[in-house]
């Protein structure tokens, strides 16, 4: 009986150790914050892997109120390659909240996502694996 308990305990410890060592780390998409002169942009990508992606964008003024604007323009580029892809525009789903879908980021590495709303412009670096 005692031996069974010990074996079970050892198995639990071994599994816990394996989980700690092998747990996949930080593939979760983090929100990225950037600020221009008047606005604050928070971009959350749907994925941090290369491929077709989509962005959730929340744009507020520096006081936290939703920004006014008809459409947001997203220009993805890859600085190391010197490679830019066609800009994508999106309208607000609610004030200050934009969903930019179907963004084809087909290469792993660091991208620079330029986001502009009227004259305000920020560049958000985004690392894809």
């Amino acid at each position, binding site marked *: 009986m005692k031996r069974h308990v010990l074996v079970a305990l050892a198995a639990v410890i071994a599994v816990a150790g394996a989980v700690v060592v092998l747990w996949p780390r930080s593939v979760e998409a983090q929100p990225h914050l950037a600020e221009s002169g008047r606005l604050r942009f928070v971009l959350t990508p749907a994925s941090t892997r290369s491929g077709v992606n989509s962005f959730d964008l929340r744009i507020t003024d520096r006081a936290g109120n939703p920004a006014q604007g008809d459409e947001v323009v997203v220009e993805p*580029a890859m*600085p*190391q390659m010197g490679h830019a892809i066609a800009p994508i525009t999106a309208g607000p789903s609610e004030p200050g909240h934009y969903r930019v879908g179907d963004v084809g980021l087909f290469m*792993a*590495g*660091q991208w620079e996502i330029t986001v502009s709303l009227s004259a305000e412009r920020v560049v958000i670096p985004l690392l894809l694996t």
Partner: protein
Amino acid sequence: MKRSAAILLFTLGAILGITAPALADGDRIGGDVHVAQTLGDRDLTVIIRRVAEVPGPVHVDVVTHAGSPPGELILTARAAGAATSTAKVVLGATPGFYSGVVEVDRPGPWELAVDEATIPFVVPALVSSPWENATYGGFIAAGALLFLALLFAVFGKPGLALVPTAGVIAAIAVGVTAALLSPSIPPVAAPGTQLDPTFGNVNDPYQRTSTVDFSRPPVNLVPTMKGEDLVLSLTDGSSGRPVDDLLVHDSAFVHLVVVSPSGNLRHLHPIRTAPGEYRARLSAAEQGTHAIAAEIARRGGGVQLLRSSVEVPGTATVQANDGKADLATEIREAGRPTTITARFGDRELQPWLGMLGHMIVIGPISGNAVNAPIWAHVHSMIPPTPGMPDRPDESVAAYGPDVPFTYSFPLPGRYLVWIQVERDYTIVTVPTVVDVPAAKGVSGR
């Protein structure tokens, strides 16, 4: 009982003995950033001192040079989502160091604004490396397991004690391997030198990327005059986007050399006023076509020389560089190393842009500097001196008087040469002309 006590003592001694070696090489956390800035009529060096703790103060020294008017500067430190911190620096009439303190509250990419000039910089995070964690983790685990084995042994379970003992051996193996290999593992690149700095990669510099070649495309330079200011527009040679990733190299973002039609040289350090836009004042400039060349280094490595020319609607008066030095030249034919040594009075030269001296070479001249095939920037290094700091700043006026330069002039002909050093917080520019003979015979090289 006596035996148990002996085992206990022995084990404790072993634990203390093996956990003692502390192998710490992870506390290297950035250094001072020196950036030369041609801000309006002033020639400044802005020194952002190493950030000791975060949140905490950042000491900023502003070094003024001779002829720099007294006045006030506003320093502003800002980062996305962080509180902005400002400080006022009052510049006196005498050239030298003036300081201000701003606050940073998090590691990551920051921007220091000095009036209208903006200097991006990185506040590094103190992160221990994975092999450091493996070393400490291995030894700590070994200690804990050894204690467990000891308990089993003391309570008369020597068979069970074998399990944690095996663990001790494994943990020590991990710790020792990591400790022995860690000196030979290259350190991770400073955040912001290869990839664009973000809060994420500054706080986790050991994040892996699949990128192996970090170099970036060449840059197009378009100079224009706006009033007295020379404005440089830098765009990416592949995507046409503004180039906003310049690294500080040789203590400046851009080393801009401007040569007037009559051969007057200025070595300026344009300020960043917008992404991809740099500007420098050409005060009392001469009228005509000026030859310009900008040295830049983009993130990812590699220095580029961008040459161009600009029409300046200036005045008709001609200014000349009036520095004086005794020059000893040993000129060899084209392709062989020529040595030019400038001697400046006493042993009182200051490092300028991290170097003892700079020599700009333009030639062979046929009419104008704009279409000279060769444009070079030669350095004279600071000799390592016992008792002196490795990278002295401008407050150390103890070098010289001899400033040697060696350069292999690639083509025969007449070259315009300027030698620049700093003395008494004044940049001394000594103009000269060098005639390089053609290589003799076929074995010239």
